[in-house]
């Protein structure tokens, strides 16, 4: 069997979706398919753990201040900066998955890995170690925007449109995607005769070493409403920057997943019993790697 179409149908007449049919298409023997699948699992292990670490570190050290506590999730800078930073790795992952494997899952994978990494630390570090309540440490969620970004990629089929429409949606949907979880925190309360929000109250109760608030860049707007239009304005501006960020990081993702070599020195080659290539052969790229995987056409 060399074609998926010749696989025997099931009793109900639908095409049989068995592993053998995929193996037939790939031309792999059962042994080869088994080891290929083992290799896949290893790659998944590497990608999941590495990008959980790298993405979380990146987001934490660029916009982590706004993400840590509900009372620091302001409508000016959190809504503006978080998507701009959080889109970078999902855009790069989207580029790698799409360019080489035609898998429109990169942004969603990035969103899931980031959320998973953040939740683990919120539970084990913040709550178990220092006793911060969960209601104070809800992480920002980028998943809806990431899914939309992947949907745009499926529909449009190229990185430029994924940047223009997907990147824009990623930034603009950040605020509504997070509002559901934070709506209660924005409720106004009377605190000693002064109007405050519920998240402010939680913040007054659980003091942190980096308070008072003026040490950080919390909003300095004049339209101090509870939620309201200002968050959407920040979201719209963020969406604009996200387009540029997506474009830059898509190309960075492609560049970083390209196979590149620098010729090794004669002495190093001799150490491993290898002969140095001739001068003309060394000058060509084919003399270095055995194989180059090219992007899908």
């Amino acid at each position, binding site marked *: 069997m060399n074609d998926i179409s010749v696989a025997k149908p099931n009793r109900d007449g639908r095409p049989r979706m068995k592993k053998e049919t995929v193996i037939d298409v790939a031309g792999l023997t059962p042994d080869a398919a088994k080891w290929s699948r083992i290799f896949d699992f290893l790659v998944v292990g590497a*990608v999941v753990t590495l990008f959980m670490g790298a993405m979380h570190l990146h987001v934490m050290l660029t916009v*982590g201040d706004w993400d840590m506590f509900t009372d620091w999730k302001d409508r000016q800078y959190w809504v503006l900066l978080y998507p701009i930073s959080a889109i970078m790795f999902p855009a790069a992952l989207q580029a790698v998955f799409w360019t080489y494997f035609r898998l429109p899952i990169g942004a969603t994978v990035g969103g899931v890995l980031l959320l998973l990494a953040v939740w683990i630390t919120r539970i084990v570090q913040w709550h178990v170690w220092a006793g*911060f309540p969960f209601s104070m440490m809800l992480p920002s969620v980028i998943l809806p925007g990431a899914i939309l970004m992947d949907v745009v990629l499926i529909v449009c089929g190229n990185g430029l449109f994924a940047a223009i429409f997907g990147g824009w949606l990623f930034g603009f949907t950040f605020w509504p995607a997070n509002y559901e979880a934070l709506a209660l925190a924005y409720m106004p309360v009377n605190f000693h005769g002064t109007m405050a929000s519920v998240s402010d109250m939680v913040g007054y109760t659980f003091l942190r070493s980096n308070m008072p608030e003026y040490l950080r860049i919390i909003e300095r707007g004049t339209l101090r409403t509870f939620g309201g239009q200002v968050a959407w304005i920040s979201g719209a501006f963020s969406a604009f920057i996200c387009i540029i960020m997506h474009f830059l990081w898509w190309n960075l993702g492609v560049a970083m997943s390209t196979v590149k*070599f620098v010729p090794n020195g004669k002495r190093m080659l001799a150490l491993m019993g290898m002969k140095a290539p001739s001068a003309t052969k060394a000058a060509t790229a084919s003399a270095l790697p*055995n194989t180059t995987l*090219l992007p899908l*056409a």
Partner: protein
Amino acid sequence: MATVFSNDIVPAPGTRSAKKPPFTVSFNAFIVAVMSIAAVAVMYRSYQQFFALSKGLDATSVDFATYWLPVFRLELPVLFGAGIACWSYLLLTRDKALEKVTPVVELKRYFYLTMWLVAYSFAVYWTGSFFAEGDGMWHQTVLRDTPITPSHIVLFYACIPMYLFFGIGSFIYAMTRIPAFCRGISVMHVFAVVGPFLIMPNLGFNEWGHAYWLTEEIFSHPLHWGFVMLGWAALGLPGVLMQILGRMRELVPVVFGSRGDL
């Protein structure tokens, strides 16, 4: 998938002997490595739970000198010593006839290199995510007094040497045992290893800045952007995986034969 092949050392498919032993790869060392990383991380986190807030708040206290300084003094030589021993072993036991590596052996070595990279990635996770945000929690709760805190003792001086062990190990393994990685230095492998490696020296800038410039721990402060940019180098890993994948696509039909040979 469009692929460019240059079959300079790959025999033609179908030349495999029918009586060849089955292809096997040992996962023992890999499982031990991953379990060891997890065990070390859990052990450190448990130690923090018991002794960080109770004995580690004041770097000048007797308790700190009893419970935390010995950990700091012990872990650096142990972890770097283990690293140097492992790297030296890999170098000294290198394959001195890389031109003659058979496809079966080469394929096995690609599996082992991928295992090195998984272990490296796993160690990076504990550093970049788990203990890094734990350090954020520490600073928001306790502030800093010196560069040696119960959080830093784990994050900077244990976790970073741990992923360096596997990162540099993967690089030496590839260069000493796999022909393609010996013939040319993989630029993306250099990025994936050297970028996170440079986080260690960047600690000097970070601690200098916190000591003289900005004692408050604002996470998004430019003082921390060195860590961020060096973390971006992790994006080089897909490049390494692409190289492995490309070569494996050539080796698999040779080692296992194709459907037509059955």
